[in-house]
């Protein structure tokens, strides 16, 4: 039998990994819908209204999966890590409580937007979907705050297993909060931009489309790429901030991401390669001198802490170097992809459908890649904190439930997630097959009041 703690981590990790896909979509799609609704209000171009409608249709199913998997994660925390939640309850319960109200706003306005759209005026429709977007973003930011607390805990002292001298708001505004929240928020918008871009590109690749449909798909593709690229740039900036924050508050985590063993100034950045523990160096990889020092401290001669400064049993697993580089690599690649697509559009400005087929294939891959980067990010954030569940305060192994049958629960949840994945994909495919774009768009030429304000 596998280790009890490991099983519990596997169960919780997969629950979170599954939930984060839908949570990310749940933060990003209402934002995209809001943008489409506003664009429609400004241009009177019905294509954008149809875009909003079709994204919302998909969203209702995804939201249901997101809510229930979120409920699983929320309650699973108490069931798998009761000792951890005992501290959480005493110190960092506030973001969880506030999150419920944020989520409540989201659910309430979602029902209004979906089920009552035809009974309220356009202005109220936009306001209600805006509230959905705000509620969704706030939920994500608050839960990320709880995660930030685990990485940089403050606002209490632990005396004999009991929290004393508690300052709940200090715990909420912990030092990891700004960079983590900004990064999670921006990556959600970036990712969903590429996901809807991938959907539009997929639609353009299919044969037997009328020019009218292709026109619609191009609008959808361009608005998605513009948002994906724009938020990609902010993501890069926020990621840089997160790195600097790590250097200060969680040096082990940064060291394991970069495979740095010895504390040094002029630390080099090594991209890729396998971190070898025996020789304490990275095999392969591209080395850029001084770059890590510069990224972590803004100075070429800045000192970056290495793993050897910490006891061996508190090192996170070394394979995280590749996970981290995978995340950064995909993110950077996607930003360049968006810029490249914009360049092509500018060069071939006279053409109605400027993108060559091979570019569309790459764009189809961009959506799943962005989602993989999100997964890498959370794997890095959470496994990079090990062996701690609360950094330097409580070990994961000390927080686990004494209850038996964790392995069986793991199997049951794997089956559940498999069922949900298959079900959701089939339901969405079935729906869009029965409601093809050609039935929803206005057949004639579009009479827009203004030209669209996005590239």
């Amino acid at each position: 039998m596998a280790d009890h703690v490991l099983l519990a981590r596997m169960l919780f990790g997969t629950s979170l990994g599954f939930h984060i896909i839908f949570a990310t979509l749940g933060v990003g799609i209402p934002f995209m819908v809001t943008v489409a609704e506003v664009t429609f209000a400004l241009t009177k171009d019905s294509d954008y209204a149809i875009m909003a409608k079709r994204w919302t249709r998909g969203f209702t199913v995804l939201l249901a999966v997101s809510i229930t998997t979120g409920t699983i994660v929320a309650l699973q925390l108490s069931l798998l890590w009761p000792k951890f939640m005992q501290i959480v309850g005493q110190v960092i319960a506030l973001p969880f409580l506030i999150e419920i109200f944020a989520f409540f706003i989201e659910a309430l306005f979602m029902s209004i937007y979906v089920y009552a759209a035809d009974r309220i005026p356009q202005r109220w429709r936009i306001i209600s979907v805006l509230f959905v977007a705000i509620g969704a973003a706030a939920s994500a930011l608050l839960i990320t705050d709880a995660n930030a607390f685990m990485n940089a805990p403050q606002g209490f002292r632990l005396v004999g297993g009991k929290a004393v001298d508690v300052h709940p708001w200090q715990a909420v505004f912990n030092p990891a909060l700004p960079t983590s929240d900004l990064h999670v928020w921006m990556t959600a918008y970036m990712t969903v931009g590429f996901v809807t871009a991938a959907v539009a590109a997929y639609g353009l690749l299919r044969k037997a489309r009328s020019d009218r449909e292709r026109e619609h798909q191009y609008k959808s593709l361009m608005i998605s790429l513009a948002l994906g690229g724009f938020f990609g740039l902010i993501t890069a900036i926020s990621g840089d901030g997160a790195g600097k924050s790590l250097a200060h508050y969680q040096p082990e985590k940064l060291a394991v991401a970069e495979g740095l063993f010895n504390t040094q100034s002029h630390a080099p950045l090594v991209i890729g390669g396998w971190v070898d523990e025996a020789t304490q160096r990275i095999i392969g990889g591209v080395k850029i001198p001084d770059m890590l020092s510069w990224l972590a401290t803004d100075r070429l001669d800045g000192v970056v802490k290495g793993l050897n400064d910490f006891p061996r049993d508190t090192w996170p697993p070394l394979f995280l170097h590749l996970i981290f580089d995978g995340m950064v690599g995909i993110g950077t690649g996607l930003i360049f992809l968006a810029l490249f697509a914009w360049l092509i559009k500018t060069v071939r400005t006279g053409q109605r459908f400027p993108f060559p087929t091979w570019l569309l294939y790459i764009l189809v891959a961009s959506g799943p890649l962005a989602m993989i980067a999100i997964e890498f990010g959370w794997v890095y954030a959470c496994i990079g904190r090990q062996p701690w569940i609360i950094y330097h305060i409580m070990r994961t192994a000390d927080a686990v439930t004494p209850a038996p049958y964790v392995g069986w629960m793991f199997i049951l949840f794997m089956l559940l997630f498999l069922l949900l994945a298959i079900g959701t994909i089939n339901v969405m495919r079935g729906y869009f097959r029965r409601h093809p774009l050609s039935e929803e768009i206005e057949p004639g030429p579009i009479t827009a009041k203004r030209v669209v304000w996005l590239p």
Partner: protein
Amino acid sequence: MNEALWGISLIWALVFIYAIAGSVDFGAGFWAMIYQRHKDAHAATIANRYLSPLWEVTNVFLVLFAVSLVGLFPSAAFALGSVLLVPGDLILILLTIRTVFMAYTHVVHKFQYLLRIISGVTGLLIPALLMTVFPIAQGGYLSHAGEVYHLSLSGLLAHWTTYTYILLGILSELFISSVVLADYARVAEDPSAYRVYRRHALRLGPVAMVSALLVLWGIPSSASWLRNDLFAQGWLFVVSGIFFIIGIFIFWVARSVEQKVYRLGVIAVVLQYAFAMLAYGRAHLPYIVYPGITVQGSFTNVEMFRAALLVLIIGIAILFPGFVWFWRLFLESKSYAGEGR
């Protein structure tokens, strides 16, 4: 009243709200299954119209309860969390299947029959599993050595006190949901659905009442503290019983769908359960789980309590207008409730 008592009152109020809202939610799923191929198809339609916008709101109260318990009574949440992995995870799995499949049905109509059965069956199983917390809390099945808690699952399943609680839970669920769905049918001016649910309300009410007596009778001698304390709250149970009689009387009088007085009966039934739960809650004090976990002993620190209370008050104040709008758009709107007839 000290702060811990305010805290547990808040938790208990959340349990009450979830008990009512959850009963309607799960019950509507059950009735939608029963009537989907029936000549009274309207009854199923009404149940579905109600379910569509509401399940998310109901689900929120479940999470709000769990999070508030962790925030206000961390040690109680710790003890319960330590032992409830299996039943808790089973509830989560059933809840997920139910909710997600309900969302699927709205988009894909092909598998409606199968999906309705899933949501109907889980609508009975989930409340049954939830009810098992009551016999656990009354003591005898939860033991601990130091900080490590252990639940005797076989002991819990072997004693019939567990089953009396489950029976009460399911019958109350069906009673409350018929009461509310009949009112919803009245708003929608749907006489056939109104007739069906009113009839169920009239029959299930007394049966649920008998099952409540069974619970009292089934409490084992090892939990005689609870039985004695329950008798001490006798007058509250009498008030509850009076509201029950008022409610049933109003339902009996309100034969036709046009009679607005029916709404008063709904309020009477809600008050009936409110007083019964108030009485049960008071009898259960000072224990959350007998005998080890008391309200006072598992209460959080004062700083967290004040901050949490502030958050709850501000949150509810912000949400209230949105909730009123929601109520008027869906639950009081004839044009919404009556659609699809």
